[in-house]
C-alpha cells in the first residue's frame, strides 16, 4: 500500500504538485493521467525519491520512504521510463541484471532470473541475452526496459509513460503483456500516461491530475459515470463515453442464455471489441466461448447497447 499524505512540491515560486493525498491499494494498477505539465511525472518520481517533496509524506506499507537511503529505496522499487533508458554499452542480459547485481545476488541466481524474464517477455534468451540494445526493435527494447525494472522482484513498479514511444499496434500488445505480468507477479503498479485509452485499458483506479492537483481519483466506471469536473469530462471525451464503458468489462460478463450463429467470441475479449465484431459480422448476436472452447451463451447487440447506456 502506498499512501501520499498531503504531498506538495515547489520549484521556486511555481507549485507543480499541490497537496495531493491518495492511497494506492496493493496488487492493483493505478494510472495517473493528465496533460503535460500537470505534475503527474513529478508525483511518481517522489515515490522513489528522484524528486523530494517540499512538504508531506509518502508511506510505503506504512513506512516513511525517507527512512532508508534513497539508493536502497530505489533498488526495491521497479522503475521503467519512456524511451526505455537502456544502457547502450551493455548487453540485454547485463541491462536486466543491473539491480540484482547492485543487490549482490550470486551469478547463478542472476542468470536464472534474466532467462526467466526474457522468456516471460517472449524474447528467446539464447538469441537476445547477448544482443546490444541498438540491435533490438522499439517494442523489444521496451520489453527489456520493463524486464529490467522487474528483475529484483519489486513489490512496487513505477512506470513513466512506458509505452509512449511505441506505435499503436505494438503499444496494444505491450499493454496486454503488462496486464499478464501484473497478474503473474501481483506487483503494485503506478503508471503515468497522457493517453486516456491506455488509462481505461489498464487501470484499476485512475487519478486525473491538472495543474498539480488531483481532480478525481476513482475506478474507471465511476469516473465515466460521474466525472468530478468539466475538465475530467473533457479528458474522457464525451463521444467516447459509451465505448469506454464497454471497454472496461469483458464479453464474459455480458453473456445471455441462448444460442447464436457465427464464430464464437472469446469471453476474455472486452465488450467494446465484442460490439465491434457484432457490427462487422452483421449478426444480432454471436456465441461466447470460454478459454477451453466451451460455449457459455451469447452476446447480443441489444444487450451491449443497453450496457453502453448511461447507468441510472
Amino acid at each position, binding site marked *: 500500500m502506498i499512501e501520499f499524505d498531503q504531498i506538495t512540491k515547489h520549484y521556486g515560486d511555481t507549485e507543480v504538485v499541490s497537496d495531493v493525498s491518495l492511497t494506492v491499494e496493493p496488487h492493483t494498477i493505478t494510472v495517473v493521467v493528465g496533460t503535460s505539465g500537470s505534475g503527474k511525472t513529478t508525483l511518481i518520481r517522489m515515490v522513489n525519491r528522484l524528486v523530494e517533496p517540499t512538504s508531506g509524506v509518502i508511506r510505503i506499507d506504512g513506512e516513511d520512504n525517507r527512512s532508508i537511503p534513497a*539508493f536502497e529505496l530505489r533498488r526495491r522499487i521497479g522503475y521503467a521510463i519512456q524511451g526505455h533508458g537502456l544502457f547502450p554499452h551493455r548487453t540485454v542480459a547485463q541491462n536486466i541484471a543491473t539491480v540484482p547485481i547492485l543487490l549482490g545476488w550470486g551469478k547463478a541466481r542472476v542468470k536464472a532470473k534474466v532467462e526467466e524474464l526474457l522468456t516471460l517477455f517472449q524474447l528467446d534468451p539464447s538469441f537476445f541475452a547477448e544482443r546490444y540494445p541498438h540491435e533490438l526493435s522499439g517494442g523489444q527494447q521496451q520489453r527489456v526496459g520493463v524486464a*529490467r525494472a522487474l528483475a529484483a522482484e519489486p513489490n512496487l513498479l513505477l512506470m513513466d509513460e512506458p509505452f509512449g514511444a511505441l506505435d499503436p499496434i505494438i503499444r496494444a500488445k505491450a499493454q496486454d503483456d503488462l496486464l499478464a505480468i501484473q497478474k503473474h507477479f501481483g506487483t503494485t503498479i503506478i503508471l503515468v500516461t497522457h493517453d486516456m485509452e491506455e488509462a481505461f485499458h489498464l487501470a484499476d483506479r485512475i487519478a486525473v491530475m491538472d495543474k498539480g492537483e488531483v481532480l478525481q481519483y476513482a475506478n474507471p466506471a465511476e469516473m465515466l459515470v460521474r466525472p468530478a469536473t468539466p475538465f475530467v469530462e473533457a479528458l474522457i471525451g464525451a463521444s467516447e463515453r459509451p465505448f469506454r464503458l464497454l471497454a472496461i468489462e469483458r464479453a464474459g460478463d455480458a453473456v445471455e442464455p441462448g444460442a447464436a450463429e457465427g464464430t464464437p467470441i472469446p469471453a476474455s475479449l472486452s465488450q467494446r471489441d465484442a460490439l465491434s465484431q457484432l457490427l462487422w459480422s452483421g449478426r444480432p448476436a454471436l456465441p461466447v466461448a470460454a478459454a477451453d472452447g466451451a460455449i457459455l451463451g451469447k452476446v447480443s447487440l441489444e444487450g451491449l447497447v443497453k450496457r453502453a447506456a448511461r447507468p441510472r
Partner: protein
Amino acid sequence: MAIGTIEEKERSGLRLDKLGIIIAALAAYGAFLAPFATFKANRIVQGEAKAIWEALPTALGYGLLALVSLAAILAFVKSSVSVRVAAALATLVALCLLIGIAADSLTPPGSSYARVSPASGFWLLVFAFALLLADALTRLNPGPGVRVLLLVGILALLGAMLASGHWDGLSIMREYASRAASFRAEAGRHLTLALGSLAAAAAIGLPLGILCHRVDRLRAGVLGVLNAIQTIPSLALFGILIAPLGWIAAQVPGAAAIGIRGIGVAPAFVALFLYSLLPMVANTVVGLAGVPHAANDAARGLGMTDRQRLVAIEFPLAFPVILAGIRIVLVQNIGLATIAALIGGGGFGVFVFQGIGQTAMDLVLLGAVPTVVLAFVAAIVLDALVEATRGRGKVQ
C-alpha cells in the same frame, strides 16, 4: 534514357580517377624533372642534383622509371583497389631500397666526407605513392585491428631497413651514426615530455572535466581560461613561464633539486601540460554531456549511487570522446615538444635547431622525420582505439 547515356559514355571511354590524375602528375614531375638525390663532396658545400638515371646504376635507374610510370598509369585509370595497393606498395618499397643503392653508388669509394641525401624528386615520389596507398586503403575501409596490423607491418619493414644497414650511406644516417648516443637520449626526453605531460593532463583534466560537467557555473569559467591559454603562441608561453618557474626554483626549498628551473624541461613540461588541458577537459565535458538522458535517469531510478553511475554508465559511454581528446593531445604534444629544445628542454627539436644553425638539412631531418613518424603512429593507433571502443555498444 539519360542514365543509359551516361553509363554508355563511362563504358566506352577510358575511365579516369580524379585523385589518380594528381598522383600521376606528381609522380611524372618527381621522376623525370626533379632530382632524385643530392651529392655533396662534404657536409658544407653546395650539392649537385642527380636525376634518377644519374643517381642509380643504369639498369636499376631505367627499371625504377618504368615501375613509376606503370604505377602512375594504374593510379591514373580506374583500376581495382587491390591493384592500386599493390602498385603503391611495390613503388614505395622500390624507392626505399633504391635510395640506399643510390647513396652507395654516388659515394666515391673510401670517402667519409661525401654526403648523399634524398632530394625533392624522391620525397615527391614517396608522397605521391603514399597518397595512393592511403587512398586505396581508405576505400578498402579496414577495421581498427587490420589498420594497426598494417602499421606494425610497415614499421617492421622500416626497422628491418634500418637494422640491415642498407641506408647507412645516406647522409641522414651518417648524421645519426655520429650522434647515436645523444639521439637515443633526446628520443627518450621527447617521449617523456609528450607522454608525461599527457599523463599529467589526464590526471588533472579528467576530474576537472567531471567537475565541470556536474557544476554548470564552473564550466564556462574553466573552459574560457583554458581556451585563452590555447591561444598563446607556444614560444610566448615558454617565455611567460620563465619568470614564475625561476622564482619557484629560487624561493621554494627543494624545487631546484627536483629539476624546476626557469628554462629547461620544467617550463616545457608545464607548457605542454597547459596546452593539453583544454582538449582533455573539453572532450570529457562533451563526452559526459552526450550520455543519453534516459540512461542516466534509469541508472538513478534503479538505485545506482552517484559514483556507481559515473563508473558504470557515464564514463564508459563518454570514453570514446575522451579517448579522441587524448588522441588530439598526444599528436599535438609530439609535435609541440620539438619546440622545447629552444629553451633547453631537449627532445628531437635539438637536432632540428642545431641543423638550422649549421644549415645542415640532414640534421634537421634527423629531428623532423622521427617526430613525424611518432605523431603518425600515435594518430593511427589511437584512432583505431577510438573506433574499437565506439564499435561495441552504439549510442542511438
